[in-house]
């Protein structure tokens, strides 16, 4: 019940940012969208699925993730139809399937996805800070460059967040049960 409340709170927070995201791509891409994903994750935090569903669900999550990485879709998300799709797809087709599949993923695949995320945040940082044109028509060039810098900071932060438990111990990678399901799921 507590998790459901938190999920609703995250979703409500995301909706409350509805007008704020028009001004700033950082609020849009790095605050509102992650909040929507978080809402989906919290919604099914304690749910388990069958092992054979993990990979298809991961593909769904990654496909939706790739869709929302495209700058033109970020633009589209500011229109009414795009906004509706965003509010539905990010929690239900990214957050939920990602959370359900994640505990079943092997440590190598998880590590690969995390490393790939760091590399891609670097690429996005490049892209948004160096693009000679506005790649999101709804935002100013300066705001676009701010978003690029924020991607780089986020990449550095996540690198620390993920590396410190491996360096100093207490990672959950050893807490998988005999079926391969990791109980801590992060």
């Amino acid at each position, binding site marked *: 019940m507590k998790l459901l409340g938190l999920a609703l709170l995250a979703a409500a927070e995301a909706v409350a940012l509805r007008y704020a995201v028009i001004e700033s791509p950082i609020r849009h891409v790095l605050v509102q969208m992650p909040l929507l994903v978080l809402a989906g994750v919290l919604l099914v935090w304690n749910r388990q699925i069958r092992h054979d569903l993990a990979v298809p669900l991961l593909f769904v999550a990654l496909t939706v993730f790739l869709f929302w990485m495209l700058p033109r879709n970020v633009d589209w998300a500011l229109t009414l139809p795009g906004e509706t799709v965003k509010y539905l797809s990010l929690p239900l087709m990214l957050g939920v399937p990602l959370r359900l599949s994640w505990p079943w993923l092997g*440590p190598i695949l998880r*590590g*690969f996805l995390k490393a790939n995320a760091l*590399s891609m945040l*670097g*690429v996005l940082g490049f892209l948004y800070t160096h693009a000679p044109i506005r790649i999101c028509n709804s935002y100013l060039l300066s705001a676009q460059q701010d978003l690029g810098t924020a991607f780089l900071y986020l990449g550095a932060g996540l690198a620390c967040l993920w590396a410190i438990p491996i360096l100093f111990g207490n990672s959950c990678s050893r807490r998988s049960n005999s079926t391969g399901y990791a109980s801590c799921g992060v």
Partner: protein
Amino acid sequence: MSAVSELVADKSNATEPQAGAVKLTMILSGAVFALMMVFGLIMRAAQGQWIEVDPALFYQLLTAHGAGMVGTAALSGAAIMWYFCGRHIVLTAGIFWAFLALFLLGVALILSSIFIGGYGGAWTFLYPLPAISGGAWEAGAAAAFLLGYVSIGVGFLLYYLELGRQIHARYGSLVRALGWNLILGREDKNPPPPTIVAAAAVTIFNSIGIILGAAVLVASLVHLLVPGFEVNALLAKNLIYFFGHVFINASIYMAVTAVYEILPEYTGKPWKSNRLFAIAWNAVLIFVMAVYWHHLLQDVVMPPWMLVVGQLVSYFSGIPLIAVTAFSTFLYVRGSKMTWDLTSSLLVLSVAGWSVGSIPASIDGMISVNKVMHNTMWVPGHFHTYLLLGEVAMAFGFMAWLVRGKTIAQMSGLDRVAFVTYLAGAAGFVTVFLFSGAASIPRRWAVHYEEWLPHDRIGTLFSVLIVLATLAFVLRFVLRLDRSNR
């Protein structure tokens, strides 16, 4: 043969994991080393005007030689470290096969981009060169080259994820595997052996290098597809040299595990981790990432403090290597009455060559020297010392050990001839490079002036010796595989 050597040799055969995969990798490595050396021989002969090579082909050969040698050094180093880590932790064979498959896919892409697509922008893919060929190659060829690197990078990422995961599972944390308990004087009933300390350090710095390398590779690919999108050239150069420097250094740091694991069979003294050893490897972990700025000493727009750090760390980075591995090797060998066969000779040579190679590197790492020497043959002189007399000698020593059998016997006549030929060829070859650098002969030039030809021709003769010795090592390995009990 000494009784002690035999005893230790028998003991070490207790666990020999995934030997088949490792042997296959070493066959591939040996074959590619030989082929790339032939490319090098052709380039030196062309510079010496003994043969005629079209300059466009020269730069393609230069690119293939650079990418091929760096890749193969890393491949052989990875196979060696995987093999010896398998003595201490349980590694998943499937990951190694996936790594090898991705590596070979990358090689296929790189070779086709060069010899079908005509790409000749050097192994460093320095931005924005891949996109401004002046008509020498199409964007597609450059993209295939970069995608080849991406494939190899993904393979290595899987390799390090598995290694890091298993080290973490066995030792609880990477800092313990790095020997922090030894450094801090805490009690550790099961301290990590030298191989694990090295593996933990390499896993950390090469993973960081690969992740940053992937970012600049993808950014370069975007630039190829959408030329209007331009990466900051200085930032791209920093990322490329960080990745490149760390990656090639990692190949030696992986291969040195052969020295830690094999030499004790000969000396009868086990190579154990201690406080100094752990401190040295932790220093290596930092230095190898902080020293790459010495590649950018001619970029005057770099912040001066970075260049100063590059110079200072160039001095310091030789210390842990020489203080620990080279000095320890000397102490282990001294007075041990060890038997000098091909394995032990090559491994001791490799540590000596690696140490000697750090001297021209440190000299070139001085800003005042670098201004004059960086674009001369001095630089290939330094890295060929590291590689020919260091990493490649370690790989050949490991190959000789894999097919040695249980008995350690003195070197046969043929082995002695091959070893002396290799030593003479490699030492002469790198000395010519260093002399050429001191004479201000530029590197990477397809066509040389008349005055430079004696250097090139002497270098060519020495490279013939290296190729012959390498063929002997590789053929010896292949012919003795059925005798191997590992």
